[in-house]
């Protein structure tokens, strides 16, 4: 094993110390097995029971003792919406509900099921509640994401449902916004939790649509994947959705609205359903395209935190950035301790790249399909001269989100370059000689 491999082994082993403790694992596994087994049993039962009484819920949660701590999903991947909320789960589906709700075992003509709500009466009468259904046997009266007033004259609540994984999640409360917020949080383990507490109505391209601020993911989130787009087409000929990313990453909805097709790409299927359900035509229009590229920023009216787009390693043009062609290079510490910028250019797996590889005895094709090679003389560079700096992977001080470009203290570059043989790939944008932005580039 090489020195590098030994260091890697030590680092991974050291990180493993941060793993959670194993207490309660057997109990949790037993509970999860029980949920899975009961759901399998319930799916068969629900198909029969639906004919005589609806709705009927698929069993959720654990042993039915109502212990509040068992309600809370073991889902540390997200934070609950502001306020006292809790996460409940059925299998791998998670939903955030108010913290003072409980889980109740309800008897539906001999079929016992569990429903969440503020009181047993509210839950078991389906007045104010959350329930999970096996989606294969769920027989809705409206489309997913539609939140409508209850038809019962004595019930002034608002009801709706969404899909998450293999389940349908249905809820009703006396507050339309609360119902929508609960449903917006429905997700499958591993997906981000959407905060549906703040929504904005946007009009563009002849449609009106409601979207949670920053798609419910916060101002720091990468919102590039999410959009509401309009495309031409006949009703019986839906367009091919241009995949903005792997379909597993987004919830996608498609609907025909006043002579055009509207598509929604959202962080979860539940949110895609909810957003799509709000789309309505505001005027006759033949416009096509997507409703604002920077949906989240546009909704809040906030300016980007940095003027130029590092593109997480591949700089991209951005309106307002004064330098369309940033200098690329490696930032390192020179022999005198000062920071030095060595310009590089990027070769690809093409004729030029192959010729360079042959000439220099390098492996070809290049790993990751490109290779950065020196181009020009190194020069002293002071990160503190930049007006704004961003990090991506090495410069991550205080950054707790997924890997993405984010503002950092420009002094972090110098702090990170503690070793003379380390270097950080960067882009430098200038305007009349002034460094307007220094960004670390993610160049795997």
């Amino acid at each position, binding site marked *: 094993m090489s020195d590098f491999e030994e260091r890697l082994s030590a680092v991974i082993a050291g990180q493993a110390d*941060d793993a959670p403790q194993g207490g309660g*694992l057997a109990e949790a596994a037993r509970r999860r097995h029980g949920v899975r087994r009961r759901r399998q049993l319930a799916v068969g039962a629900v198909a029969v029971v639906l004919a005589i009484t609806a709705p009927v819920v698929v069993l959720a949660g654990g042993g039915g003792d109502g212990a509040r701590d068992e309600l809370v999903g073991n*889902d*540390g991947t997200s934070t609950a919406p502001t306020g006292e909320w809790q996460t409940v789960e059925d299998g791998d589906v998670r939903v955030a509900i108010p913290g003072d709700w409980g889980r109740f075992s309800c008897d539906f003509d001999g079929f016992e099921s569990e429903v969440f709500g503020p009181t047993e009466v509210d839950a078991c009468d389906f007045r104010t509640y959350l329930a999970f259904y096996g989606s294969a046997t769920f027989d809705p009266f409206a489309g997913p994401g539609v939140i409508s007033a209850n038809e019962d004259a004595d019930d002034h609540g608002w009801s709706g449902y969404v899909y998450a994984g293999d389940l349908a999640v249905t809820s009703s409360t006396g507050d339309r916004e609360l119902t929508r917020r609960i449903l917006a949080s429905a997700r499958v383990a591993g997906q981000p939790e959407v905060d549906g507490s703040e929504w904005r109505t946007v009009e563009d391209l002849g449609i009106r649509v409601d979207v949670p601020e920053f798609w419910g993911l916060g101002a720091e989130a990468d919102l590039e994947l999410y959009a509401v787009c309009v495309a031409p087409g006949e009703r019986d000929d839906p367009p091919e959705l241009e995949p903005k990313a792997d379909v597993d990453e987004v919830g996608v909805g498609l609907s025909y609205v006043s002579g055009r097709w509207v598509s929604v790409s959202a962080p979860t299927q539940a949110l895609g359903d909810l957003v799509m359900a709000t789309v309505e035509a505001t005027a006759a229009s033949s416009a096509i395209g997507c409703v604002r590229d920077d949906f989240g920023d546009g909704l809040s009216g906030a300016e980007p935190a940095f003027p130029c787009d590092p593109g997480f390693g591949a700089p991209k043009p951005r309106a307002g950035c004064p330098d369309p062609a940033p200098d690329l290079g490696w930032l390192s510490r020179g022999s005198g301790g000062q920071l030095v910028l060595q310009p590089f250019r990027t070769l690809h797996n093409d004729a030029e790249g192959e010729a360079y590889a042959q000439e220099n005895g390098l492996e070809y094709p290049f790993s990751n399909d490109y290779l950065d090679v020196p181009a020009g003389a190194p020069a002293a560079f002071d990160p503190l001269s930049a007006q704004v700096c961003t990090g991506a992977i090495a410069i991550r001080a205080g950054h707790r989100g*997924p890997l993405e470009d984010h503002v950092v203290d420009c002094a972090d570059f110098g*702090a990170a370059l503690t070793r003379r043989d380390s270097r950080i790939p960067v882009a430098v944008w200038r305007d009349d000689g002034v460094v307007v932005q220094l960004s670390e580039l993610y160049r795997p």
Partner: protein
Amino acid sequence: MDDVGARPVPAAFDDWVAARGSALLRLAYVLTGNAADAEDVVQDALSRALPRWDQISRLDDPDAYVRRMVVNAHTSWWRKFRRRESPAADVRTDEVVTGPGEGLHSDERRRLWAACQALPADQRTAVVLRYYEQLEYDEIAALTGVREGTVRSRVSRGIAVLRQEMGERDE
């Protein structure tokens, strides 16, 4: 490093989980990169092992069997919910490094871990099994269900990326 294969095998599921659960969580943690997903992966594997525990506990190496279930659960989880970017480790610059790797500068340790977390899932899995579990290539191949050559390629490419991230040349 956790040696999940060296101890006698308790017959009871709860006893076995009490003895081996932490090691499984550690493996899942370095595979997934965060505590919640690690718990999710291990609970999923154990919940599937539970109904078959009588058979599994009689195997020559039940540890390896469940470890494989954890890796498979991770792979399944990743394939189902894979993200464009890997979640990063929760690291801070004031972090104090202890135990293995204490000879490394904390910044280097942080960068190397972050770079490891940023590897594509298949490469990261291969690297973790190779350099954390210390498995041979053929063992990793058997565990992940791919050819040994594929494992070698994944490890090699992963190491190359990590070296590049750390600004080091191939040896």
